């Protein structure tokens, strides 16, 4: 390989989803093929553009821009390389990447660099407008930075939707000898992968967002808590932090200013409940991930008892754009009280699955049918689960719901972290409801009774319904149990598990009964 100007520049994603379908093998195959031809190539490993049904989607630099091919298998390497050298046609050629309609239709504010830049290179980040938000933040005082975040309307992207600016102001106003910034990268919801993608594809945007938060509230240390199921993201963040330190963007006197800020990655250990912020703080302190009662709020007494800003990866990743382009530029997107963009993740049985960043307000139907293209099995969509294992199941009748925190809440659902899992007409909804209870039972931290006991009783009750035992009575028990969990649990795990259960029961009552009637209903 050579990095001379004449070398053919080939981009092969290092994103875990691309790697899971053969991206690493393609790197070896291209290197071998180029060597055989004595052709100079340079392979760059960006993140993924998010068109995941096309992965591995690889690109080549041409005078017209980066031309994409996908999905590329090892057997295609020789012919794709021919087409790259000749800048000619190929069955897998998708044209200039930015012009692919699925990508062009998006509004990429947070993910603008993901899949484009080399995530190991701070220079490449800066060349693509990175660290401009920090540069501006360094010219403002604490109140000025927080005013921008507040005016942007940014709400916590982890799922709770709490206004980020208010959280930051609370920490800034609390006096303490130490304060902390904590990034919640415990993205455990099935159907979500936006945190993973941005950490792997553009780690510096997360680092920059956290650094700005540190400067705004007066914190000098930050932790990124990443789940152990994401080894590629852990590696990418560690490499990113090391590169940022070398370049003077982390550590003492950041970019010659008076500010000090350092970051450390901590790896989770396979506990879903640690995505809940107080449980995460316990885990960071080296304890069992048992949920804390609030108050005190983490903003007052958080990590090691000190004032702590704890935000989701996507919340921090939205900050550099806001500081660079101004609060209004961000707030101009969206609807109602949901401002800006949401990186939506289309997953499960979906034809065109991937990451679609778009302003709030797009309807569920547009996302599933137009963007997602329906199911990959070709069967009709029967239900979609929005917002992870604690999110409600929506039937087609509710596909007019706009993607907005309040609109989803009004229909007994939640947008959560923006994941949508699509199911076709073979899905058995009482089985899905049972899984929700079972998952809660496995992952409950055990502190509060409704969650710890309720989830196990929930599994048993649904089993009785599925066996046809006193169905009407047991459905009443399940509803009562769900209410107890919803209003009596300490955190969202027990409190939101009723969403998938009750929505399945409400919208698909025919699935709740003895097996034969379920089968008849499906026919």
């Amino acid at each position, binding site marked *: 390989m050579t990095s001379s100007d004449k070398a053919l520049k080939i981009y092969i994603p290092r994103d*875990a*989803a691309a*790697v*899971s*379908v053969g991206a*690493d*093998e393609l790197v070896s195959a291209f290197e071998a093929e180029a060597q055989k031809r004595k052709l100079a190539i340079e392979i760059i490993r960006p993140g993924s553009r998010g068109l*995941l*049904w096309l*992965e591995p989607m690889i690109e080549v630099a041409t005078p017209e821009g980066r031309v994409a091919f996908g999905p590329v298998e090892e057997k295609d390497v020789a012919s794709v390389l021919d087409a790259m050298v000749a800048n000619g046609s190929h069955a897998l050629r998708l044209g200039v990447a930015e012009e692919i309609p699925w990508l062009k239709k998006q509004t990429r504010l947070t993910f603008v660099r993901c899949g484009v830049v080399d995530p190991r290179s701070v220079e490449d980040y800066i060349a693509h407008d990175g660290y401009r938000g920090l540069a501006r933040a360094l010219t403002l005082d604490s109140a000025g930075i927080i005013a921008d975040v507040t005016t942007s309307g940014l709400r916590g992207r982890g799922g709770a939707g709490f206004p980020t600016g208010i959280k930051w102001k609370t920490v800034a106003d609390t006096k303490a000898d130490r304060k902390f910034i904590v990034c919640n990268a415990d*993205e*455990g*919801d*099935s*159907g*979500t*992968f936006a945190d*993973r993608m941005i950490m792997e594809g553009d780690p510096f945007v997360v680092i920059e967002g956290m650094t700005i938060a540190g400067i705004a509230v007066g914190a000098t240390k930050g932790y990124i808590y990443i789940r*152990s*199921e*994401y*080894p*590629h993201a852990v590696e990418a963040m560690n490499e990113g932090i090391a590169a940022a330190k070398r370049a003077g963007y982390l550590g003492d006197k950041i970019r010659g200013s008076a500010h000090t800020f350092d970051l450390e990655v*901590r*790896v*989770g*250990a*396979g*506990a*879903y409940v640690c995505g809940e912020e107080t449980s995460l703080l316990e*885990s*960071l*302190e*080296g*304890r*069992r*991930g048992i949920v804390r009662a609030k108050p005190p709020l983490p903003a007052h007494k958080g990590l*090691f008892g000190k004032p702590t800003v704890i935000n989701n990866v996507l919340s921090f990743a939205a900050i550099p754009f806001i500081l660079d382009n101004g609060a209004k530029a961000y707030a101009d997107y969206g609807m109602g009280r949901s401002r800006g963009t949401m990186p939506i*993740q*289309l*997953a*499960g*049985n*979906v034809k065109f*699955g*991937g990451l679609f960043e778009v302003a709030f307000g797009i309807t569920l139907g547009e996302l599933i049918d137009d963007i997602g293209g329906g199911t*990959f099995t070709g069967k009709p969509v029967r239900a979609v*689960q929005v917002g992870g*294992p604690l999110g409600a199941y929506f039937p087609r009748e509710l596909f007019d719901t706009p993607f907005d925190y309040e609109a989803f809440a009004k229909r007994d659902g939640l947008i959560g972290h923006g*994941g949508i*899992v699509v*199911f*076709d007409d073979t*899905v058995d909804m009482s089985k*899905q409801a049972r*899984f929700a209870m079972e*998952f809660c039972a*496995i*992952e409950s*931290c055990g502190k509060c009774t409704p969650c710890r006991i309720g989830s196990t009783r929930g599994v048993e009750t649904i089993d009785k319904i599925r066996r046809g035992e006193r169905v009407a009575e047991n459905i009443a028990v399940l509803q009562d149990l769900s209410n107890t969990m919803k209003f009596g649990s300490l955190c969202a795990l027990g409190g939101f598990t009723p969403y998938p259960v009750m929505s399945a029961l409400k919208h698909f009552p025919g699935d709740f009964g003895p097996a034969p009637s379920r089968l008849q209903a499906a026919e």
Partner: protein
Amino acid sequence: MNAAYEPNAYEPWSADRGTEIIESLSHVEGGVIVILHAMQEAFGYVPEAAIPMIALARNLSRAEVHGVFTFYHDFRHEPAGKHVLKICRAEACQAAGGDALAARAEAKLGVKFGNTTADQRVTLEPIYCLGLCATAPSAMLDGRLVGRLDEKRIDALVAEAQR
């Protein structure tokens, strides 16, 4: 296939090595989980004898460290098989036909999830989401990710694990 994903090779437990690991992480604030991870990385599991050592070094009770160790799904109290096959059992993989493939893997290996084959070759574990939800169903064999599983691919993965 890929040199980075060699089967697991672990050191045998030794108290000296355990002490070394604990001391090398003494600067880590709230570091019990960090130490447990390091123990498991070195020995393939967290040996019982390590628990009181961690407790002593961190000024905690044995019960507290035992409590942390048992809370998290990742930590093992006995060595895993030569290969660890984790199959995602969460909703997105269910929607993509993952349940049938998971059952197929159980049948091929002759063990239920959470168990190791009698010949100590393969440990089969459930995992709740690898974040590969648009290339589902997915699995991880010794740190190598595999997406878009179908019968052929799961069979190949199981065969690879059994080798």
